[in-house]
């Protein structure tokens, strides 16, 4: 069955041409003004809307808002004879999927329509698949995205094994929650889960924390003490930030993992244990191996079951699920009445890059709940960083690059090599945080700005030479924070 399109265009001449561009591939209903368009929209189900900005009774952009509130997913193409960047940016901010400046030909319209419908079809398939899986959470982890379903699947598959799990991911992505889930899903759930953060313990005390010590082992050791290894016997030992472990201790840890036996600090007798090991780091382990900060043999010993915790920005609607949980929790704790987020705030939560991931989201929601009153979270209540992003003062790239510069955090992304015959493990993963290589968006921005300069500021002409639509350039300028 053909897709049905609602065309909102007050010019009879334009309307008849656009209708003939689209039929017979599509069924087209035409409305000349906002009132008729609203009526049609309420009566029938449409697959796509083509919306003129200038209408006799209402602004096309405010009509866009109305359509979006009823149907957040319907693709909308905004068309106008105004080719200004402001209108294009405003339309995209208000939820338009694409923007075409008049006059345009059949090919331009068809390509845009077909691309959006294809995207909608794929989105529906993904949603069907996600809803079929029917898991919004897994132990303490909240999330229904495909990325998290994959994590849940690995945990379920690996839980009952004794194989070591190596969890990687940016800071704040829930690595400890993942480790806890592995423990709870395993046959060791009734035994101890002991978590040790290797970055939080001074290096000279770390060995004692893990293996314990005998009385008199060092100055201050006035009595014997059990370490995490003994406390987690028959259970799970989670070593977080394992990349911070000193090299000398790494070799002792390797032996411990391989044999299950260890000696407390200052002790002579070996103790045998049965432990399931889970480790985590927010650094790129292969970069650490290459730079000599992490033992290669320990890396391969640990990396039996790798789990990559996805960053929040790649988890789709999970941000809303998690934000709602935090809102409920903090509203109860702080005795407030917040129940929901406005549609604008929901859109912002999905667009904001969350460099601090779930931890940052938690802080933001708590900040809003503590400092405001009301039943619904609105734009005015947003903390500074989110507010600046919403107002276009910050771009996603600048937020992420500022965080990695300030914290020295290896904000890494792993890329798998397509060369299956390459046995050098170090080349299978590449970090994009290498400052000698210019980020792709900067190179792209320079190229686009150069094209615009050559065309004397004419964006549609520059777009034609670049073989993209003008709306693509307007969208990128919005992302760069340029109005």
């Amino acid at each position, binding site marked *: 069955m053909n897709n049905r399109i609602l065309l909102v265009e007050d010019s009879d*001449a*334009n309307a008849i*041409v656009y209708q003939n*561009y689209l039929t017979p591939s599509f069924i087209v209903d035409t409305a000349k003004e906002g009132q008729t368009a609203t009526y049609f929209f309420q009566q029938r189900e449409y697959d796509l809307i083509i919306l003129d900005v*200038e209408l006799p009774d209402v602004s096309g952009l405010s009509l866009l808002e109305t359509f979006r509130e009823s149907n957040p997913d319907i693709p909308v193409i905004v068309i106008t*004879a105004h080719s200004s960047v402001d209108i294009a940016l405003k339309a995209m901010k208000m939820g338009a999927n694409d923007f075409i400046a008049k*006059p345009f030909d*059949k*090919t331009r319209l068809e390509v845009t329509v077909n691309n959006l419908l294809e995207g909608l079809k794929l989105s529906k398939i993904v949603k069907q698949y996600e809803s079929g899986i029917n898991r919004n959470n897994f132990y303490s982890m909240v999330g229904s995205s495909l990325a998290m379903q994959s994590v849940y699947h690995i945990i379920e598959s690996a839980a009952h094994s004794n194989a070591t799990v190596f969890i990687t991911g940016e800071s704040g992505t829930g690595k400890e929650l993942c480790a806890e889930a592995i423990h709870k899903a395993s046959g060791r759930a009734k035994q101890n889960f002991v978590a040790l953060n290797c970055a939080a313990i001074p290096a000279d005390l770390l060995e004692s924390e893990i293996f314990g010590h005998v009385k008199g082992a060092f100055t201050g050791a006035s009595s014997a003490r059990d370490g995490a290894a003994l406390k987690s016997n028959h259970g799970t030992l989670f070593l977080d930030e394992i990349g911070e472990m000193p090299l000398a201790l790494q070799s002792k840890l390797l032996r411990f993992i391989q044999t299950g036996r260890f000696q407390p600090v200052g002790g002579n007798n070996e103790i045998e244990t049965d432990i399931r090991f889970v480790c985590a780091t927010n650094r790129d382990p292969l970069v650490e191996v290459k730079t000599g900060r992490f033992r290669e043999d320990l890396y391969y010993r640990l990396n039996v079951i790798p789990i990559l915790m996805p960053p929040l920005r790649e988890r789709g609607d999970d941000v809303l699920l998690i934000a709602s949980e935090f809102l409920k929790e903090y509203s109860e704790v702080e005795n407030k009445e917040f129940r929901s987020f406005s549609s604008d705030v929901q859109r912002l939560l999905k667009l904001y890059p969350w460099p601090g991931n779930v931890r940052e989201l938690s802080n933001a929601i708590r900040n809003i709940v503590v400092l405001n009153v009301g039943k619904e979270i609105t734009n005015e209540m947003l903390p500074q960083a989110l507010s600046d992003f919403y107002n276009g003062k910050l771009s996603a790239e600048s937020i992420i690059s500022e965080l990695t510069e300030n914290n020295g955090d290896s904000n890494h992304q792993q890329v798998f090599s397509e060369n299956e015959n390459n046995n050098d493990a170090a080349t299978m993963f590449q970090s994009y945080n290498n400052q000698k290589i210019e980020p792709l968006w900067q190179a792209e921005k320079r190229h686009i700005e150069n094209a615009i300069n050559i065309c004397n500021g004419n964006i549609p002409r520059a777009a034609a030479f670049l073989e993209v639509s003008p709306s693509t350039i307007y969208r990128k300028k919005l992302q760069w924070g340029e109005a």
Partner: protein
Amino acid sequence: MAEDTSPDLMPTMINVYLNELGKRVEEMENAINAEDYFQISEIAHAVKSASGTFGAEILYDKAKLLECKAKEHDNSLDEITYLVNDIQEAINVTRNTYHAYQLEF
């Protein structure tokens, strides 16, 4: 446009365009009599839009100029009236040209 739609449809589509132009001339007359600059710019925008679609480049450029001038509030009524008259003439010429073109189909 004939390739993008069909030669058979061209007479009908041109007819719609010419009718719309006729309507816009009347609207513009009313707007200039009322000295309604906003309305003049809206009508000019509509003429520009349709003329762009139908390839009437001269009329497109004139409509674009009138739209721009009508939006600037520091132009005199005489200047706007001159531009309106100019565009009305251009519309008449365009109508005649397209009517002749229409007969070719």
